[in-house]
């Protein structure tokens, strides 16, 4: 199993550009999550999904969108990138909400 994979590893965006961060898991997990982690801080939940076709907002959803058309994939879309979105983005998955979360390696995004 590859676990949770994320692409790209690094990206630099200009203000106003858009991009999609890819996340995939091969563990047949129901729950998937997107977090951002600012330097020296804990993780903040952006969006999560309880299964294909079902998504919901987390703590900091503004400026982001998600979709979940399959169990495996959970892309995160940034529209109109802003410097405040400079962060490391982690995708995670878990079988059920009370189970441990498995994290991907992260995407380091810089918006200039």
């Amino acid at each position, binding site marked *: 199993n590859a676990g*949770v994979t994320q692409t790209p590893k690094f990206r630099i965006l200009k203000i106003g550009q858009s991009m999609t961060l890819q996340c995939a898991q091969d563990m047949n997990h129901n729950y998937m*999550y997107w*977090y951002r982690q600012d330097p*020296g*801080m*804990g*993780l*903040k*939940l952006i969006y*999560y999904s309880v299964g294909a076709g079902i998504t*919901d907002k*987390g*703590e900091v959803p503004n400026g982001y969108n998600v979709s979940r058309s399959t169990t495996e994939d959970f892309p995160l879309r940034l529209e109109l990138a802003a410097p405040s979105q400079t962060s490391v983005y*982690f995708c*995670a998955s878990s079988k059920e*909400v*009370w189970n*441990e*979360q*498995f*994290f*991907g*390696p*992260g995407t380091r995004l810089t918006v200039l």
Partner: protein
Amino acid sequence: LAKTTQPISMDSYEGQEVNITCSHNNIATNDYITWYQQFPSQGPRFIIQGYKTKVTNEVASLFIPADRKSSTLSLPRVSLSDTAVYYCLVGDIRSNYQLIWGAGTKLIIKP
């Protein structure tokens, strides 16, 4: 919203037992308490999870008092490789509580 408070940093020495306490005064009835470890440039990794009393696995123990307003992660006989940031996570997205991660405790193990 559930909120966790942890010490910002701790130091210890190889071979010692390390205890990291997390306060979560507003924990809800359905909330689990989960601890994760994070190394630089990596995603967090699950260590242990509990609901009440004591839980032990091959790497750590988790002590939760009856009122569940705090919890203590215990790492026995730490080594240099245990140097990392440790996060306490309390919450359950099935309720109105979000998954609120604290700022974490940076643990430095010295030789």
